[in-house]
């Protein structure tokens, strides 16, 4: 599953690099940009999933340590209760890729 997710995100990053602006980046700087793009996309995912949570779900996680296993489990559980969240994430991520391509300054 995680491999599928990684492959999916990698395909988004590759799409960014296929744009004219990013195609000019020297090879030695690419890894740093990959990190920035991934960070940005992960932020989009997080924002999307939090925006989808109900008040009850927010109340459950609001006091959990943000980097804890319990928090991770709850995020996964709550995300799985939304059958259409995958489509929403896909839409948001596609939009994010388009935005990055148009405006790389978003990553700074």
């Amino acid at each position, binding site marked *: *599953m*995680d491999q*599928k*997710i990684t*492959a*999916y995100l990698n*395909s*988004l990053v590759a*799409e960014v690099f296929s744009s004219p602006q990013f195609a000019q980046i020297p090879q030695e700087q690419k890894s740093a940009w990959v990190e920035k793009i*991934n*960070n940005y*996309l*992960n*932020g989009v*995912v*997080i*924002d*999307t*999933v*939090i*925006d*989808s*949570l*109900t*008040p009850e779900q*927010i*109340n459950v*996680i*609001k006091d959990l340590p*943000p*980097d804890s296993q319990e*928090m*991770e*489990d709850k*995020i*996964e*559980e*709550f*995300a*799985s*209760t*939304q*059958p*259409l*969240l*995958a*489509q*929403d*994430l*896909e*839409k948001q*991520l*596609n939009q994010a*890729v388009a935005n990055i391509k148009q405006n790389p300054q978003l990553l700074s």
Partner: protein
Amino acid sequence: MSKDILGLDPNLIPTSNLSSPTREPLLGDDKLPGTSQSNRLLAGGRRVVEVVGSILHGTEAKLAAVFDSHPVRESLFSAIGRITGSAPKSATIVTELVKRTTSKTMEKRIFGQRLGDMIVEGATGAGLGTVGKVGLRVGLGIAGIGTSELILIGGGAAVGLSKAAIMEYLHQRKEFVAKEVEDAGLSEVKTELKEAFRINRRRMAGAALRGAIFGAVGAAAGVAITEMAFEGISPWEWWEKNISGIKLPEIHLPKISMPELHMPEVKLPEFHAPEIKLPEFKLPEFRWPPAAEQAQEAATASPVVHGPTGPVAMSEASAAPTAEVHTPAAHETVIPGAETHVPATGTPIPTAETTPIPQATATPEVHATPAPTAEAHAPAPAAEAPEPAAEAPAVPPHAEAPAHPIDHVTAPNGAIVSGSTFNDSLTYNGQPWHLVENGTKNIHHLLSATGQPGDIDSEALSRNMQQAANFWSHGQLNPQTNPDLYKVFHLSNGTSSIYNSLLNKNTLESLIKLGIVAK
């Protein structure tokens, strides 16, 4: 172009179902609460929820039990099939609904392609469920995921849910949830959570994406259940009819292998623990000398010369190396009156040589405050040791050994030796030095070790020990000039390694030669 998040071709998703002019409304426009596609979808789904949900109510536990009783790959479909079979009403009722709304062509497109693939994913999800707590519910599609929403989607898909309709639904849901969150006063909490998650975006984003995919898979399973109910067949039959020939992905549970544990090689000192018997640790009887005598001793004492490691080391240092001679390290401690070194049981306790305990090393306070403890007898640091071999006075071999009492002689290691073994007045730095007592014990051990019966002549032992003490206190005891005395002395006073090296017939011969043991 990026792939679908599920790895599927987005073109397979139908996009214009609800807007099709040939499509009939689910329940008729006059019964819908709105006219938009989303309202229609919601209303249709809500009706499906009412029907299917009532039938499935209370079956979660049964689902889980059935799931647990089946092999992983078949569990999803077996469980669903049994539940569906146990609720025949659903087929009739829901089939009537779908007949009114769904064209067969569209039905096949949905379930035969995209959702068929997702069902395969669902099987994978069920497999994952065996190792993840989320998976069971998601893999089953019904038992755990928000049932109403799942079946809503199932119903929506059954009536031909378009991607546009899905997005509209999502938009409406977001607005609805956002308002609820705001009404609950949780908007700031939500913002804080977003900020907090920036600590480890990758981890939490991964969890969210996993959950989202599980949710989609579960939804697909729900759609399939609804479809099966529509058609009045069991999911397994449906599988055979529609998906047959598609090979299920092999489920490979992660192989867990314990890392080889390589303990770092720890070199322990020579410590023969199993052989150790704790000795009776008797503190030597200590009598403080009169204050006047102490003052006199202090006044007449020669300048302290720090020997290498005490009496044993000093005497050995003055000797030429032989096979039996042990050259102790600086940390070895020789303790006079050494019941602690040579126990009554005959098994030497570990000395500093075998257990290099920091306390065993010398401290400057040793001479200033003598106390009847091992620490008090600790020798001076080896760094101060002179080269003893060159300074040792030469004694002719088998020279006549003096047996007279020692009168406050400063030994090469700085210890003050005084008294006689004959009246048990021999002292080492003012403390009783039980050479004869220890010697008697250890000679018994020697006799036992060599299998030689015999009595010990106490007088001869006292005499020879006194002679040995005289030699030693003057730095003249060494294994070449006085080999027999050397052995008897160290048999009573040596470190454990020396003691062990003396438990042999050569030492016995020396004892016999000295008249200590009868032949």
